[in-house]
């Protein structure tokens, strides 16, 4: 049987996937890239979390849910962490749960693109839809990101190769520029390659803005090669619709000036008569959704503290920072592997707390957790809506039954909330 699916391998949420399913097994995956195909395969892997575990012992789902509720109820300061790999409906339940247990709500977005997504919303900037980029953008800039390694289909599905209304020749109707600190694979499809030293993004944005508004700076100020820079400027001046896709490269050493400088440049481009926009290349499939859900429920994007009853927020108090101080005694981790990805001090803090892991795989975090609640693989075994990097909401189309005792994130969260 051939079914259509939406890929949850990254925030592109490719919606043209075709899966051949026979007897509850996947026979073939069409059109998904290596990341997407791997995610679908992972539903059938040996490393899968299939049974609830308490202290490494198999327990019933009811027992595990009861224990999770008890741990959260008795927690002095609980952290609810993850959410970028869960559907919007689950994020909403997570926010309610955090409120209920006076917990701290956060996830990878606070150290990833959460700020970019929030910054744009604060400024009232709505990114264009990727379909509009496909149809109209005649200059695509990849800045501090490397989709050839992270969002494999970004150029072929939307931004560079497709033939659109105003871009009838596809790649030949567009200019492609890549800005990075070293040569990357994405540069293989670029017309202009701007290599800058780390941390010079804001300087480069300012330099480009200056060129557009008639005040000449020196390319050396941004550490960029002169010839390459001016050929890019010439091309930029000929463009009618510029879209900049930017990555974490703009946050050199946690600095936000790169992102802010980029949005200033977008404004200058717009005032010079060129249509321009910027879209962050968030990695996890629903990072945009997690931030948007948090904003609509509390007015804050992430790192939301419900300990005082009412939600509060400080940009400097993220889960990573508070974990490093050993602040949390109980941590519910959903669809994330902080033990594998957080810095050393935060990991030490996490190791001192009791962890409840809700995940489809036995990740490093799940293996070290007190309690494991096996989750269904979003988009493969469970549905809901997810938000693409451009803010477009898509309905997932699951095509397998949840394996073993696994349940959708929403179902697990509802069961825990009910038990509370």
């Amino acid at each position, binding site marked *: 049987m051939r079914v259509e699916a939406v890929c949850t391998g990254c925030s592109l949420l490719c919606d*043209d*996937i*075709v899966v051949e399913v026979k007897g509850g097994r996947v026979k*073939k*995956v*069409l*059109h*998904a*890239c*290596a*990341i*997407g*195909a*791997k995610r679908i395969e992972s539903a059938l892997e040996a490393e899968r979390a299939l049974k609830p575990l308490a202290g490494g012992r198999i327990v019933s789902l009811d027992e595990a849910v009861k224990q999770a509720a008890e741990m959260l109820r008795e927690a002095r300061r609980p952290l609810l962490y993850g959410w970028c790999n869960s559907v919007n409906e689950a994020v909403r339940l997570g926010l309610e749960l955090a409120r209920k247990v006076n917990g701290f709500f956060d996830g990878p977005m606070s150290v990833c693109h959460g700020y970019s997504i929030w910054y744009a919303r604060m400024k009232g900037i709505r990114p264009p839809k990727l379909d509009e980029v*496909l149809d109209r953008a005649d200059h695509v800039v990849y800045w501090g990101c490397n989709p*050839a*390694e992270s969002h*494999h*289909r970004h*150029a*072929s*599905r*939307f931004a560079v*190769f*497709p*033939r*659109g209304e105003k871009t009838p020749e*596809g*790649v030949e109707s567009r200019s492609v520029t890549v800005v990075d600190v070293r040569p990357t*694979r*994405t540069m*293989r*499809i670029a017309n202009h390659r701007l290599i800058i030293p780390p941390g010079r993004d804001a300087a480069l944005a300012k330099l480009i803005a200056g060129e557009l508004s008639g005040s000449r700076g020196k390319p050396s100020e941004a550490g960029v090669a002169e010839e390459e820079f001016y050929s890019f400027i010439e091309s930029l001046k000929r463009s009618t619709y510029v879209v900049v896709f930017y990555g974490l490269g703009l946050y050199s050493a946690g600095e936000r000036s790169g992102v802010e400088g980029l949005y200033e440049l977008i404004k200058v481009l717009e005032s010079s008569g060129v249509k321009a926009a910027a879209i962050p290349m968030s990695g996890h499939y629903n990072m945009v959704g997690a931030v948007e859900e948090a904003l609509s429920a509390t007015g804050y994007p992430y790192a939301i503290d419900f300990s005082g009853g009412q939600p509060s927020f400080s940009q400097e108090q993220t889960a990573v920072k508070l974990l490093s101080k050993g602040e949390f005694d109980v941590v519910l981790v959903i669809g994330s592997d902080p033990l594998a990805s957080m810095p050393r001090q935060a990991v030490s803090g996490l190791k001192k707390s009791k962890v409840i892991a809700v995940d489809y795989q036995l990740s490093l975090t799940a293996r070290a957790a007190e309690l494991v609640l096996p989750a269904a693989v979003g988009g493969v075994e469970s549905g809901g809506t997810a938000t693409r990097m451009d803010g477009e909401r898509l309905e997932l189309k699951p095509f397998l039954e949840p394996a073993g005792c696994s349940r959708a994130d929403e179902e697990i969260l509802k069961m825990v909330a009910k038990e509370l």
Partner: protein
Amino acid sequence: MDVYKLLPKTNCKKCGHTCLAFATKLILREVKLEDCPLLFEDKYAENLAKLRELLEPVMDTYETGLKLDESKCTGCGNCVVVCPANVSVDPSVARGMGANSEEVVFRVEDGVAKIVNLERCRRFPPDRINCRMCEQYCYSKAIEIY
């Protein structure tokens, strides 16, 4: 002419062409040696061997011109969408969608690009265009054209 000289030159048209036209079509790979029944008679055995020898490099060049190393491929689909032959048989590919037609040159299956119909490539007869789009835009150098 070298090919023509080795053919039976009887213009029997059992292949549907004159021998001269057949020679041209052989070089363009539009017909195969097997289409000429006379060539397989004993008296032409020597000519047939010479023809095979003569045509081998031509056949080989075209057959191996495009090489896809699946172990390097990340399934980005740049080749699928940039390939003009793919777009002509499956218009949804022009909009960046995966190729659902069975007639395409490239398609991504299980996370890697596969060559489904090499003979649809524009480098093959009758087009024989020196198109290198797939090679040019491959992120991982999985595609090479010799």
